[in-house]
C-alpha cells in the first residue's frame, strides 16, 4: 500500500472515530434530556390532578380533566378510564391499546385522541383513583421522535461529510509529505550513487520543518563531501609523496646489495635504515594528525605553564640555532600562569614551528619564540626574519603534503604545518600565519581558558 493511501485512510479513520464520539455524545445527551423532561412533566400533571381529586372528588377531577387549557394542548393526553380501560371523560376517542390489564405506572402506548383518525405514540401514566376509575395522563411523543429522527439523520450526513473531508485532507497531506520526502530521497540517493554536487532546495533561514531538515541534510552532505575531498587529496598526495622516499629506500638497498667492500656495505646499510626511519616518520605524523583531529587526545589534557614549555624548547633548540648562527630568543607572557591542554602535542607543535623556521627562515639570523595573551586568545608563536610565505600561498602551506619549496630538496613530507593546525584545532584554536615584515610569524592561537573554574 503506498504511503499516500495509508495516510489518507488513517486521516479518514480518525475523522470517523472522532465524529462518532461527538455524535454518540449528542444523541445520548438529547435522549437523556428528553426522557427526563417527559417523566417530570407526567409526574407533575398526575400530581396536580390527584390534588384536585382529593379536594374536589370525582366531579372536581372531571371538570379539571375537561379544562379547556388541558384539552386544547395538542400534546396533552388526559382521561378518566373505567375499570375496563374505556375512556369515560377526556381527550381520548378510544381505549388505549395497553396489551394487558390496567396497572399503576409509566408506559408507552398508542392512543387516539378525539379528532384524530389514527392512534399516536404517547408516554402515559396510569393511576388508580377509586375502585372503579383510573386516571390517565400523558403526552404525545410523535413530534419528539420526529425531532430526534431529523437530528440523527443530520448527524449521520455530517459524519459522512467529515469522513470524506478526512480522507481528502489526509490525501493532500500525504501527497505534500511524499513530495518533500521524495525530494530528499532523490538527493540523498543521488549522493550515495556518487553525485556529490546535488543539494536540496532550502531557504537559508526560516521555512517549515522540512526546510530545516533540508538545511541539516545539506549541511551534512557538505561536510561529507569536504571530508571525502580531503581524504581523496590526502591519499593521492600520500601515495605521491611516499613514492620518493620509497624509491630512495630502494636504491639505497640496491647499492648496499651490490657493495663489495664490507665497510662500504655497512655504511650503505646505515643509509637504508635512515631512509626507512624517515619513511616511518612520515607515516607516524600522518597518524598523529588523524589522532589530533579525532579529538580523542583530549582525555590527556593537563594544566601546565606555557612559559616553562616555551623556555624549555628554546633551551633545547638553542645549540642547533647556534650552529646555524641564528639567535633564538624567547618572551613569555608572564601574566598567563597556566593553560589546559595537551602538553606533549603542544610541545610538538612548537617544536615543528621552530624547526620550520630553522629550515626555511634561518637566513634572517633571528628566531623569536613567544607566548602572548590578550583578552580573548593566548598565542604560542615562532617568528623569523626569513623570506616568509606570500599571503596567497599560506593556505597551501597549511595543507597536508603542501610543500612550498619547489625543488623539494629538503627532507620532509610537508606535514609539519598540517600537524600544527590539527593540534590547534584539538585545542579549539587555529594556526595563524602572519607577515612578520619581513619573515614569517606562525602562531597557535588558542582560546583563553576560563581560569577560575578550569580544572585539569
Amino acid at each position, binding site marked *: 500500500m503506498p504511503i499516500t493511501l495509508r495516510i489518507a485512510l488513517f486521516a479518514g479513520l480518525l475523522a470517523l472515530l472522532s465524529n462518532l464520539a461527538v455524535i454518540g455524545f449528542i444523541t445520548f445527551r438529547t435522549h437523556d434530556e428528553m426522557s427526563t423532561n417527559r417523566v417530570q412533566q407526567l409526574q407533575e400533571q398526575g400530581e396536580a390532578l390527584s390534588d384536585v381529586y382529593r379536594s374536589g372528588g370525582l366531579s372536581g377531577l372531571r371538570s379539571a380533566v375537561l379544562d379547556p387549557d388541558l384539552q386544547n394542548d395538542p400534546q396533552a393526553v388526559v382521561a378518566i378510564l373505567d375499570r375496563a380501560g374505556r375512556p369515560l371523560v377526556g381527550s381520548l376517542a378510544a381505549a388505549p391499546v395497553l396489551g394487558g390489564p390496567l396497572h399503576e405506572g409509566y408506559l408507552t402506548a398508542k392512543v387516539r385522541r378525539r379528532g384524530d383518525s389514527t392512534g399516536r405514540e404517547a408516554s402515559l401514566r396510569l393511576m388508580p383513583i377509586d375502585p372503579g376509575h383510573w386516571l390517565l395522563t400523558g403526552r404525545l411523543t410523535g413530534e419528539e421522535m420526529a425531532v430526534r429522527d431529523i437530528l440523527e439523520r443530520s448527524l449521520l450526513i455530517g459524519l459522512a461529510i467529515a469522513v470524506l473531508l478526512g480522507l481528502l485532507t489526509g490525501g493532500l497531506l500525504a501527497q505534500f509529505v511524499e513530495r518533500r520526502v521524495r525530494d530528499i530521497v532523490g538527493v540523498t540517493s543521488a549522493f550515495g550513487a556518487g553525485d556529490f554536487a546535488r543539494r536540496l532546495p532550502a531557504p537559508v533561514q526560516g521555512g517549515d520543518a522540512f526546510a530545516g531538515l533540508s538545511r541539516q541534510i545539506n549541511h551534512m552532505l557538505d561536510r561529507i563531501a569536504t571530508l571525502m575531498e580531503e581524504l581523496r587529496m590526502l591519499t593521492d598526495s600520500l601515495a605521491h609523496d611516499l613514492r620518493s622516499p620509497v624509491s630512495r629506500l630502494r636504491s639505497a638497498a640496491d647499492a648496499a646489495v651490490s657493495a663489495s667492500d664490507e665497510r662500504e656495505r*655497512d655504511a650503505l*646499510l*646505515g643509509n637504508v*635504515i635512515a631512509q*626507512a626511519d624517515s619513511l*616511518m*616518520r612520515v*607515516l*607516524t605524523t600522518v*597518524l*598523529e594528525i588523524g*589522532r589530533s583531529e579525532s579529538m*580523542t*587526545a583530549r582525555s*590527556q589534557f593537563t594544566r601546565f605553564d606555557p612559559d616553562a614549555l616555551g623556555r*624549555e624548547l628554546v*633551551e*633545547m*633548540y638553542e*645549540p*642547533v640555532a647556534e*650552529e646555524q648562527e641564528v639567535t633564538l630568543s624567547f618572551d613569555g607572557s608572564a601574566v598567563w600562569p597556566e593553560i589546559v591542554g*595537551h602538553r*606533549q*602535542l603542544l*610541545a*610538538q607543535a612548537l*617544536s615543528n614551528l621552530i*624547526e620550520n623556521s*630553522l629550515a626555511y627562515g634561518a637566513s634572517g639570523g633571528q628566531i623569536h619564540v613567544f607566548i602572548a595573551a590578550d583578552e580573548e586568545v593566548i598565542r604560542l608563536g615562532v617568528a623569523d626574519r626569513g623570506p616568509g610565505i606570500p599571503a596567497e600561498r599560506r593556505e597551501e602551506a597549511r595543507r597536508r603534503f603542501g610543500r612550498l619549496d619547489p625543488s623539494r630538496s629538503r*627532507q*620532509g613530507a610537508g606535514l609539519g604545518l598540517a600537524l600544527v593546525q590539527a593540534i590547534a584545532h584539538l585545542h579549539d584554536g587555529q594556526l595563524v600565519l602572519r607577515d612578520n615584515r619581513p619573515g614569517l610569524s606562525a602562531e597557535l592561537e588558542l582560546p583563553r581558558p576560563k581560569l577560575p573554574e578550569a580544572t585539569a
Partner: protein
Amino acid sequence: MGRKILIVEDDADTAAYLTRGLTEEGHSVEHAANGQDGLFRATDGNFDLIILDRMLPGLDGIAVLKALRAAGITTPVLVLSALASVGDRIDGLESGSDDYLVKPFSFAELLARANALLRRSEARVNVDPKLTVADLEIDPLARSVRRAGKKLDLKPREYLLLEYFARNAGRVVTRTMLLEKVWDYHFDPGTNVIDVHVSRLRRKLDDGFEKPLLHTVRGAGYMLAA
C-alpha cells in the same frame, strides 16, 4: 649475567627474532603467544623483564599489564606497539609500563631499552648514590661532576644527560630514549637536535682528556664507557 625475560607476542616471526637476539645476548627467554598465557606465566615465573606486545588476541597487552600491576607484580615491562602516536605512547606508559617502543624498531633500540630496564631493577639494590665511570665521578645529590678530580661545569640539561648516560654506562642509549627520559618529550623532532646536545656534552666531558668516554654507536645511538 643472563637474566630471565618473558616475551608476550602473538606474531611468531617477531617473537623468534627477539628470542634469538636476546638469547645471543646471554639471557634466558620464554615466549607466550597470547595474553592469557602471558599473564599466567608472568604471575607464575620470576622474570626480570617482560616484553609485552600491545595488540594481542584475546586479552590485549594493556589489560595484561593492568592485571599484572593489580596483582602487585612489579617486574619491569617494556610494551611494544604499532600504535605510534604521542597519545598512544602516553596511554601505554600511564597504564603501568616502564617503557614503550614503537614497531617497527631496530633490535639495537630494543636491546638498549631492555638493558636500561634490567639495569634499573639492579640499581634499586645499589645503595651508593655516587655514579662512577672510569675517572668520571657524579654525585646526584650535589649534582656535581668531576673527571680525574677536576670539576666539570655543566648546564642543568647537560647534567641530566650525563647522569642518564652514567646510569646506563656500558650500554647503548638511543636518541629517542634521551628525548623521552631527559626531556620527557614523546615525539620525534626529526632533526639532529639530540646529536647537537650530545656533542656539546662530549666537548665538555672529553676535550683535554686522553681517553674519550662518550662514544657514538653507529646506527644505534651513544654509549658512556671507559
